[in-house]
């Protein structure tokens, strides 16, 4: 099973590739450090660089070749949250080997849960619980956003179980198509559910807006100086950035710990050979359902925070293409490899948010080409997916175990899905 040593090695490789040049000066002192201290140091350095991004982004050069400028902090918020979803999807696709083409449904459920529990959507009632920066008289349900994030995760997890239970019995490719079906139904439902027997559940194509913002309330503000309400703060992007980063780190931590847990080993066993796993006493249905529920949980939390950051949940955000976009992150990074998915997620979300259009405008300005790169972004993702599958199916930063599976080849033929002999 994937051991601690394995993990350290992977982490080392990530950090090593990215930071090698900078560290040459302190090379000697560095090499005296023990292995574990070194990788910890690298991780801390990297984390520090990321965490301080909002502070030094202003002083970064503004006319960089190719990408033109460094991503703004608000872009980075979305990038981090999309990456968090990709890490969630990696639990389903990467660990358990269940192809989910409808992950956008979980994003939608999370976002709309935030919309229902923290906005003026249901004017019929007036419920306040720990809401910050909202007038007590405002109608609707206003729960504290931190609480809403948790509730959104749980509701989405339950939705994952509901979707999973009837379909996980099916063979893998059918599962893919059923999840795809749900990924299409749920967005259509939220688009149409503005008049369910006269009841406006989702406000149709207009979406739910505004959605409350996170914050710490007045008491904590006085005691510790924490911001009352993010949206009303002048540095709201930075606050959202650190919240998103915190959530992403929690997700990564949970994801790594889950992988090494009993449950995670069961997932990997199922991925490698379902029949053999069942024979060894792994309860297939329960294990797969857990993969679904936990994968969905993180998607829901991320979705809720995206909704809070955008101050709204709009049906136009939820399209099938988004599921493929997330899948592309998982495939590019390496299915099952947490660090690979994080790196690929950050790169691809950045490209999606502003990178591609910047690169496109640079390309058109500096070459005689006239080509709208951003228009073809999903074609580019398609090409990435196909090339990765053909030439490097293990991903950019492969997980050791999965690499073995692919290279052994012989075991692979029918195992990822296996047949349902059990």
């Amino acid at each position, binding site marked *: 099973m994937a051991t601690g040593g394995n993990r350290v090695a992977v982490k080392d490789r990530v950090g090593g590739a990215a930071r090698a040049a900078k560290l040459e000066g302190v090379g000697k002192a560095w090499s005296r450090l023990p292995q574990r201290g070194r990788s910890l140091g690298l991780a801390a350095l990297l984390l520090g660089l990321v965490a301080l991004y909002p502070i030094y982004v202003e002083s970064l050069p503004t006319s960089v070749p190719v990408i033109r400028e460094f991503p703004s902090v608000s872009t980075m918020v979305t990038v981090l949250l999309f990456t968090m979803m990709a890490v969630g999807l990696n639990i389903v696709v990467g660990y358990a*080997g269940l*192809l989910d*083409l409808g992950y956008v449904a979980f994003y939608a459920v999370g976002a709309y849960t935030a919309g229902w529990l923290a906005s003026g959507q249901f004017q019929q009632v007036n419920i306040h619980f720990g809401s910050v920066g909202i007038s007590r008289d405002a109608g609707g349900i206003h729960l504290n956003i931190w609480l809403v994030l948790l509730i959104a995760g749980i509701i989405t997890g339950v939705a994952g179980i509901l979707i999973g239970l*009837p*379909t996980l*019995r*099916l*063979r*893998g*490719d*059918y599962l*893919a*198509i*059923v999840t*795809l*079906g*749900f990924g*299409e*139904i749920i967005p*259509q*439902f939220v*688009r*149409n559910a503005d008049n369910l027997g006269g009841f406006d559940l989702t406000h149709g194509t207009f979406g739910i807006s505004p959605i409350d913002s996170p914050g710490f309330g007045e008491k904590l503000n006085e005691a510790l100086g924490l911001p009352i309400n993010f949206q009303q703060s002048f540095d709201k992007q930075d606050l959202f950035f650190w919240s998103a980063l915190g959530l992403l780190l929690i997700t990564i931590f949970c994801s790594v710990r889950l992988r090494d847990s009993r449950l995670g080993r069961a997932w990997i066993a199922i991925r490698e050979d379902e029949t053999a796993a069942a024979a060894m006493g792994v309860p297939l249905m329960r294990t797969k359902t857990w993969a679904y529920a936990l994968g969905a949980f993180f998607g829901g939390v991320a979705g809720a925070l995206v909704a809070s950051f955008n101050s709204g949940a709009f049906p136009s955000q939820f399209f*099938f293409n988004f599921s*493929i976009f997330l*899948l592309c992150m998982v*495939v590019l990074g390496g299915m099952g490899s947490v660090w690979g998915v994080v790196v690929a997620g950050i790169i691809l979300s950045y490209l999606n948010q502003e990178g591609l259009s910047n690169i496109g405008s640079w390309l058109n300005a500096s070459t005689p080409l006239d080509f709208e790169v951003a*228009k*073809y972004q*999903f*074609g580019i*993702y*398609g*090409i*990435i*997916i*196909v090339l990765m*599958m*053909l030439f490097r*199916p293990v991903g950019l930063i492969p997980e050791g175990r999965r690499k073995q*599976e*692919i290279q052994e*080849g012989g075991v*692979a*033929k*029918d*195992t*990822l*899905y296996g*047949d*349902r*002999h059990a």
Partner: protein
Amino acid sequence: MLGVLFVILIAIWLLRNFIADPQEFINISLIGLTTGSIYALVALGYTLVYGILQLINFAHGDVFALCGLVSSSIMIGLFNLSGGEAAVVIAAGLLGTIVLTMLFGATMNSTIEFVGYRRLRNQPRLTMLITAVGMSFIVQNISLAIYGVNYRSAPELIPETPAFTIGEVSLSWNKLSVILITIPVLLGLTWLVRSTRQGKAMRATAQDQDAAAMMGINVNRTISFTFLLAGGLAGAAGVLFLMQFNMRYDTGFELGLIAFTAAVLGGIGNLAGATLGGLLIGFIQAYNEGLAIWSPGGDWTRSIVFGILIAILVFRPEGLLGERTPEGA
């Protein structure tokens, strides 16, 4: 039990509508028959490929859309058809368009197989499936690059005038032509798979690739041929669709999913099943969008179609005409 109850409820709904306005009901049924025929052609492509490779060829719907768009170029650009010519010229031009588009679709589809799927055959099936998703986006973007985001439509080659009228019910030449083209294509396909040497090779390869290879069947060629066939069907469907509706680069994605649902509904891998499923889905869509009483309306079509897909997969994964296999669904 639940299924029976459900069917009874639908029957009551249809009957209620039929009694309220029989002519309208039959007209809507004819629309369903026309769209259903097109769905059937696309669904056959999914079923053929699934039968032989157990692969959901996501790119199939996009090949269909590209074929439809290409056929508009052939029709207008190559043959200069505008609808005002003599009937013989139109018939010949249309036939030429269909043949050329089928050739294009066949080439496209087998190229995708050759470039993308062939070398992944010994990999886990997940790999091929993900590649198919990627291929789908590539083909879609090829359509986008060539034809842009605007909808295209065919000139009115076949008049909307009624071919025959019974009472108040009439069927236009345009709709009739879809059915007139679909039926010979289906018959030809059935003959090809059932009665020719190549068809036998296809069935053998579908059952067991290794054993088929040992019997001297060229498995690679047989699989290529299957993709050729599927692509040809997508080409024909593309022309027919273009003559009824507008289409653009992303039409194929949704239509592909609907057609795939049709294939699953009928029992994937089963040719008659795909045809039946296509027609059923066509009817369901037409009734849902057309009937006046108690129908959810066009906003919900997609949800209903996917609801059917999920229900079928959960309760009867082998489909209406399929046989339960030892592996389950």
